[in-house]
């Protein structure tokens, strides 16, 4: 209380000689926000907000009827959704803040949300261009924010302090019923950064973005969310694993309670097609948003020894597929970083998940090693088994249809007896060997070798 009282006592007009200015500059903020995120990921961040909207309304159920449309031209980026919109209250207090205040009332937060850090929208806008319009309609409010980033950057108040606010473009509707057909949010970015505009309008970029969107929001698209990029639907590519009587993927559920909040973890490990070759590895999702895609690095345990020893990723593991889903009411407890491109590998939660991933993944690796060892043999029962599954659509099963909980099942390993003897080869002068031939009463040099070994072994072994 005392510190608060003191603060209030201070007269802002009189500069305090002991005060050191440590306020951030807007330029630093903009630069540091946009520097460490790839363009595709910045755009996916915007889509995350739309998906959160759908989730706020329907939870994890059917998203039919909701859409997210992206339009990219050489002078404009646009994203439009009908996922419920953003209220004036949220816009005024939170959505445009840099970072989400920890005291944000829970009624305004989406449970299991993907948006978490309160930087996604601003970062994407700054990454893309220098002017933007955000227009949003909820069932009882409507607003438009229109800003020029360069003008905002240098805007100061009467005393020369940075102005950290944006302004609504009047009129703002609050507590007035809106047309239910118009619910949703539309963000338009113009005055695009030249390099970005050039890059975004290449076919390779659009293809990559489409593929990343398909992967990142595979689950939401699977629930019926319509996602389009320049009018082209983002493909539905649900993850599948091989399931047959002889091969069954591992599946296990875990629950961890942190600060009285439950975190659910589901892990799958199994095999699938060997192509595309880059598809092998671990897929890690936080609140249904893909964070790591086909990861083949130590981040997901390759070459590590927690719980089980996993080898470094090798092309012979191309059929390996592992899926990890971390879900939590409070997204702050999940181990993702702010760009949602990586994981906080130091978090105990993720370390624990990695241990279980290794334990569930190791038998799959053993199987793939057996499969690889079969390569140069005449009889190839494992090859014919997996190749048959490659072509058998019935053996390709959606993760959500994998019901059995348990470890990976594959044909029992044939025991390969290791030889229990080795050859020893060495040279010695003939004369000396002859002496020992006499001693042991044998005729061949090889017998001298054996006899001398036995002799020493008898005495010293």
């Amino acid at each position, binding site marked *: 209380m005392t510190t608060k009282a003191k603060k209030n006592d201070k007269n802002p007009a009189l500069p305090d000689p002991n005060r050191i200015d440590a306020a951030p500059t807007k330029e630093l903020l903009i630069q540091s926000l946009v520097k460490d995120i790839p363009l595709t990921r910045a755009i996916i961040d915007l889509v995350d907000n739309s998906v959160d909207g759908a989730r706020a309304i329907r939870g994890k159920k059917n998203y039919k009827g909701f859409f997210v449309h992206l339009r990219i031209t050489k002078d404009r980026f646009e994203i439009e959704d009908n996922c419920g919109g953003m209220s004036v209250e949220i816009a005024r207090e939170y959505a445009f803040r840099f970072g989400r205040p920890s005291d944000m009332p829970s009624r305004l937060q989406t449970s299991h949300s993907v948006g978490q850090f309160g930087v996604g929208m601003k970062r994407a806008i700054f990454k893309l261009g220098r002017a933007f319009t955000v227009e949003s309609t909820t069932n009882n409010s409507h607003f438009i924010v229109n800003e020029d980033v360069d003008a905002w950057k240098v805007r100061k108040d009467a005393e020369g302090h940075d102005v950290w606010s944006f302004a609504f473009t009047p009129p703002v509707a609050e507590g007035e019923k809106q047309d239910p057909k118009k619910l949703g949010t539309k963000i338009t970015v113009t005055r695009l950064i030249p390099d970005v505009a050039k890059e975004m309008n290449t076919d390779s970029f659009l293809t990559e973005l489409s593929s990343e969107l398909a992967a990142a929001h595979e689950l939401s698209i699977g629930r019926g969310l319509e996602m389009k990029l320049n009018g082209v639907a983002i493909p539905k590519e649900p993850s599948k694993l091989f399931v047959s009587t002889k091969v069954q993927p591992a599946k296990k559920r*875990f*629950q*961890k*309670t942190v600060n009285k909040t439950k975190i659910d*973890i589901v892990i799958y490990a199994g095999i699938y097609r060997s192509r595309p070759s880059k598809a092998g590895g671990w897929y890690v999702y936080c609140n249904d948003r893909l964070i790591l895609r086909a990861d083949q690095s130590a981040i997901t345990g390759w*070459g590590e*020894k*927690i*719980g*089980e020893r996993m080898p470094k990723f090798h092309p012979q593991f191309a059929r390996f597929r592992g899926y990890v889903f971390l879900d939590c009411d409070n997204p702050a407890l999940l181990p993702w970083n702010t760009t949602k491109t990586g994981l906080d590998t130091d978090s*105990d*939660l993720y*370390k*624990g*998940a990695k*241990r*279980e991933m290794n*334990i569930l993944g190791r038998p799959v690796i053993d199987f793939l090693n057996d499969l690889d060892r079969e390569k140069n043999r005449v009889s190839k029962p494992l090859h014919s088994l997996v190749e048959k599954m490659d072509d058998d659509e019935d053996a390709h099963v959606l993760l959500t249809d994998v019901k059995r909980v348990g470890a990976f099942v594959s044909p029992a390993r044939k025991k390969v007896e290791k030889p*229990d*003897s080795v050859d020893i080869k060495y040279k010695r002068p003939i004369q000396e060997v002859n002496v020992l031939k006499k001693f042991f009463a044998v005729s061949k040099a090889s017998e001298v070798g054996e006899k001398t070994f036995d002799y020493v072994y008898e005495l010293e*072994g």
Partner: protein
Amino acid sequence: MAGSGDKIDYNLRPAKQIERKMLSEAFRRLSFFQAVESYRYIGFGSFYFADFKLIHKSLGITDMVSFELESWKRKRFEFNNPFRCVKLRFGHSNDLLKTNWQNRRTILWLDYDSPLDKLCLRDVSFFCNNAVSGSVLLVTVDAQTESEPAKLEQRFSEFKDNVNDDDERERIPFGTTAKNLAGWGTAKVSHKIIMNEIDRVVGERNLLTEENFTFRQLFNFCYSDTARMLTVGGIIYSANEYDKYRACHFARDLKFIRTGSEPYMIDLPRLTFREIRHLDSQLPMSPSKLRAKGINPRELRKYAKLYRWFPSFAEVEM
């Protein structure tokens, strides 16, 4: 598990025999988890099966598995197998543990006669990852050392290579130098490495499970029949079985229980059979009050500490 079976009759290692008897006495207290005779015992029996004989006879355990590396000596091991209930498994313990592990309370004695190395630690780690609450782990390693400073440096570099895995984190305790391996130092460093490994793996196991396991060290024996040896051991239990662990009261009356880095030295007095009988008739008794003609009081103290487990060997003409 390695080939020291040929070198020395395990029965004739008196300190080792004392250690076995002490351990067996401690195992009796496991009955608060479940009847001791229904535990599973996994050990490295060698040709002599000394531990198997003692544990079967004194505790009544019947689910017993012995790991043997030297599969080419299978016939001889089978011939020496003392009881029908002892199953022999041939191969390396790293593989055998995986294939022979059962989800039941187990006493696992990793009774190596080689110095600590990464393969031993792999077995230790397997136990910590998989053991059921109430299970006991024992690790015996050779802790022999060198006295010459030059050889000690060489020894230290070998020790480091043996203990560290290629791409695993450093296992040598921070600040350890060659000098730390002198005397009983190798035992001390080995003890620290084993306990660090246990703590790390149990910690990892607890990251996601709600069970929350604790490994409590109970044993830290050092003795020297021929070479300097170290046995580290303890019990793993889950948080909800803490009461059972408490009920075992390992430390009560069992003076050889050691929960920290200070070892319990099994130090043998040199006494004749006649002296032993004479002392036995006065025991139990405070060592200072023991009366024996011409025996150094230090030897008397040693004997008073060990007499209950002291083996009696005699040459018998048959």
